[in-house]
């Protein structure tokens, strides 16, 4: 009996295969295919929710739950090995949540080849879920690389005018980073082989490797390059505005909502705990790039005439915060980064959906073409305001929690970064509110903007849950933060235990957080070795192939 995680990966794939057998009748009324794909994605969402319901988020629980493992390529110790901790759980649910929404946004914007589009969307969902669940590094890479293909087709086939350029740029950029990670992954497995005598791609076993520092630097850079291109971090962000402006609305929703998070997740799960010394060494570099991204992304966003491009650059800025929190390598920072990823997924996903709706109505996304929409579309305006405020990070909304925790964590580490990052908070208010003002307020100057229809039922189904999530995450952050905490704590302990003195030297003693307790004084359950000793309990289900 396959476990829930396998079901979550497999059900979209089965859905996609079944879709292939449904005849394609082109045209916007292709209801059967649309409802079928939506149904499959809702089932997958239900599975991810069931995983959440069954997840034990207490600190004493097993580090990885819902574990399933079966040999895949035994000659090299490659396994089908999936399992989640609090960190992946949240991203898993986010994927489950956003895919049906993205499919709904496709109902108006995608009119040709609906079947193929739905197939690609479901395959994309399956591989993204795989990325967040895989605990075997090889398996992770397989999913990680596969994600590119459906997204490439989505941008290339259903995108706007420059779609081919954007699609090719997207796939080449991200692949160039990924293949170096593949080399590093292979190198890791060989290191495991020389040190222990057996091949392994098991992440938890690889965590235990004592890699010489010089080697760590190279491997860390290879992994990190793959991840920061995906995030994307300045100066590797140039593919993102192109991909976003050219992608169809559902593609943008998934790209911003989930795919960028794969980069942040990869850093937290792989690059940093696998190479702790290197991570501590390069953290200032990452942080410097991240504050540049925060400010640069915001400044460029401010001057964009195209709404979609504006939101894309705002993503660069917001994801810069994520990297800053990760680079701090303390509990607040990483937790904040993880939370910010969820928040950004919801609010930017929603922003792209809203821009898509405007673009469906007017067939333009240029800000100056709009103005005074509030008069004709009060409900749309209200929802847009909620989302805008959540993106800015208004207290009480989801964006605030993440940014606050990140800055808290970064401040404990090195306050200089926070000073600059805080500029990004101010600037985000500037560009978002300015756009909001120009689009929705003022007089209707363009006759085309008169009599635009307000939110339809389908559109409510898209933005309603997103707006609710934006508020809910802001009001009750602990629902999301609590499952993450043990996972984040473990990762931070693992890294900081390698070099406890380094951070102490930088900071005043009064700010000493728990994670920087020297290795000998730490309570037993947080020792890194416990990840392996605790593993037998975590085997909830085992599938035999």
């Amino acid at each position, binding site marked *: 009996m396959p476990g829930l995680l396998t079901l979550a990966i497999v059900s979209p794939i089965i859905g996609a295969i079944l879709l292939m057998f449904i005849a394609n009748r082109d045209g916007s009324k292709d209801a059967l295919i649309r409802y079928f794909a939506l149904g499959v994605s809702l089932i997958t969402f239900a599975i991810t929710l069931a995983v959440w319901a069954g997840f034990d988020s207490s600190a004493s629980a097993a580090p990885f739950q819902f574990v399933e493992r079966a040999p895949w390529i035994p000659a090299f110790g490659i396994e089908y090995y999936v399992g989640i901790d609090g960190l992946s759980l949240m991203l898993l649910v986010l994927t489950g949540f956003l895919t049906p929404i993205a499919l709904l946004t496709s109902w108006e914007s995608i009119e040709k080849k609906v079947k193929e589009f739905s197939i690609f969307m479901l395959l994309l969902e399956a591989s993204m879920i795989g990325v967040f669940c895989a605990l075997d590094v090889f398996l992770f890479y397989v999913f990680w690389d*596969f994600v590119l293909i459906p997204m490439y087709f989505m941008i*290339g086939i259903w995108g706007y005018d420059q*779609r081919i350029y954007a*699609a090719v740029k997207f796939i080449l950029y991200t692949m160039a980073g990924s293949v170096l990670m593949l080399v590093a992954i292979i190198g890791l*497995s060989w290191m495991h082989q020389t040190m222990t005598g057996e091949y392994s791609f098991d992440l938890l076993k690889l965590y235990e490797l004592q890699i010489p520092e010089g080697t760590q630097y190279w491997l860390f850079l290879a992994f990190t390059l793959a991840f920061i291109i995906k995030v994307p971090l300045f100066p590797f962000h140039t593919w993102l505005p192109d991909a976003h402006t050219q992608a169809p609305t559902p593609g943008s929703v998934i790209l911003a909502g989930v795919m960028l998070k794969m980069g942040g997740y990869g850093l937290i799960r792989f690059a940093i705990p696998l190479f702790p010394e290197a991570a501590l060494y390069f953290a200032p570099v990452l942080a410097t790039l991240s504050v540049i991204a925060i400010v640069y992304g915001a400044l460029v966003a401010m001057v964009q005439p195209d709404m979609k491009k504006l939101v894309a650059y705002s993503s660069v800025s917001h994801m810069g915060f994520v990297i800053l929190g990760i680079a701090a390598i303390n509990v607040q920072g990483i937790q904040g980064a993880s939370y910010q990823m969820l928040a950004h997924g919801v609010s930017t996903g929603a922003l792209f959906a809203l821009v898509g709706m405007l673009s469906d109505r007017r067939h333009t996304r240029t800000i100056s073409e709009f103005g005074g929409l509030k008069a004709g579309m009060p409900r749309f305006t209200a929802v847009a305001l909620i989302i805008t405020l959540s993106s800015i990070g208004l207290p009480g909304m989801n964006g605030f929690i993440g940014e606050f925790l990140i800055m808290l964590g970064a401040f404990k580490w090195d306050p200089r970064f926070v000073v600059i990052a805080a500029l990004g908070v101010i600037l985000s208010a500037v560009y978002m509110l300015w756009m909001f003002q120009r689009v929705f307020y003022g007089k209707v100057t363009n006759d085309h903007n008169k009599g635009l229809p307000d939110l339809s039922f389908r559109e409510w189904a898209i933005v309603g849950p997103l707006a609710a999530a934006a508020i809910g995450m802001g009001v009750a952050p602990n629902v999301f933060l609590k499952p993450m905490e043990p996972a984040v704590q473990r990762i931070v302990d693992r890294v900081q235990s390698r070099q406890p003195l380094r951070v102490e030297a930088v900071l005043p003693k009064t700010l000493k957080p728990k994670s920087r307790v020297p290795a000998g004084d730490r309570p037993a359950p947080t020792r890194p070795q416990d990840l392996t000793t605790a593993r037998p309990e975590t085997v909830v289900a085992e599938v035999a192939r």
Partner: protein
Amino acid sequence: MISGQFDAIIPMLCVTLAGLVVLLAESFRGKNENMPIGGLAIIGLLGAGAASILLWNSNAESFGVVTADNFSLFVNLVLVGVGILTVIFSSHTVERDRLPAGEYYAVMLFAIVGMMLMGQATDLLVIFLALETMSIAVYVLTGIRKDQQQSTEAAFKYFLLGAFASSFFLYGIAFLYGVTGTTNIERLSTAIAAQSMSGNPMILLGAGLLIVGFAFKVAAVPFHMWSPDAYEGAPTVVTGFMSTGVKAAAIAAFVRVFLKGLDPMIADWAPVLWWIAAATMVVGTVVGVAQTSLKRMLAYSSIAHGGYLLAGLVAGNDVGKAAILFYLAAYALTNLGAFGVIAMLGTRERSNDDLRDYAGLWHSHPVLATLMTLFLLSLGGFPPTAGFIAKWYVFSAAIGSGYYGLAIIGVLSSVVSVFFYLRIVVMMYMTDRDARPVPPPVNPVALGGLVVAVAGVLYLGVLPMGLIDLAQKSITTIF
């Protein structure tokens, strides 16, 4: 088995016999009679495949110069697969292009005999014999469309350069024989090891000349110049056959000679092959980007794949040897499939292999476009296809021997190659059809072959462990 002496050559006997029967059958054929000559060829190939399976683990030997160890049997099975798929894809092109069916299939079978002998031979002179048997047959196949100037020109170029390379090869054998007094690979190895001759200039010269000969056959840079022209001029199905069969056979012999015969002096030749492998990967992919003819594009891609195979050879470890075998199988399926699609879209007058010909193929032939995409993704090394596992396998071997640089060049060049594979995908899916004539209808038999190939590509991508195990077992007996 009949008698111990002939065991090892039974697979080749089956194919030879089939070739003779095919020739005879053709001569008895009435003027407009339809004769399933391809079927006869397939029967012979199946026989060779069955014989190879029966000989598994037997380590049979014939006449002291031909062996049937698992390594060569694995290669035999790949060649049988290549042969069968080629015959299937040929079934309609032979008719369409009015090729002389009997000669076409017979020459193809003789080429396969040569290929099998290359994998099975344990003596340098027999390898040379095999090389010539294979090459001459392939020259003929290249030029089999006598009504086309391009085809004849390609065959002639290929023949001239090929003959040149063969003589290099023979010259290399002469030097090695002169120093060691043997052409037997096993004794060569012991002679070199015993007298620690690895620095001997005559040996180095001999090894160098052998590298030139082999590099020519696997189309490695800088001895690759013939291949784009020959690949473009040859009938498309033959191109697929050449790019997979010839490469598999040449690599098999390359591995045997260098990792067994010249293994004691690996420190001398590995750096040379390192550069050849790196240059082959880079040139193959970078020049491939500039092509507009699909056949030329895939010719350069096939050069690049030769480079990846050489990376496994440079690694020289057990992982590398098994990786080469796996790679050959994966690559054969994928590349044959890709050429199969191109062949199906051609007509008698034009091979329709220009990039523009593929514009909007998705709309006119959705199935073919999907199949082609899967083959291209596999060539580009995307999961979950055979190509991905194969690339991971060879690079794993290279890294295992500490060749990080080669692996990095390899993966980066594969990103470049993705660029031109995607150009085809862009044409098929993202460009609207212009006013070109609609390509011909799909031939069901050939389509069946393509579906089989795609199924194999996906199967090896998702469940590769069976073949990986087999490849690992194949190398234990000889090295």
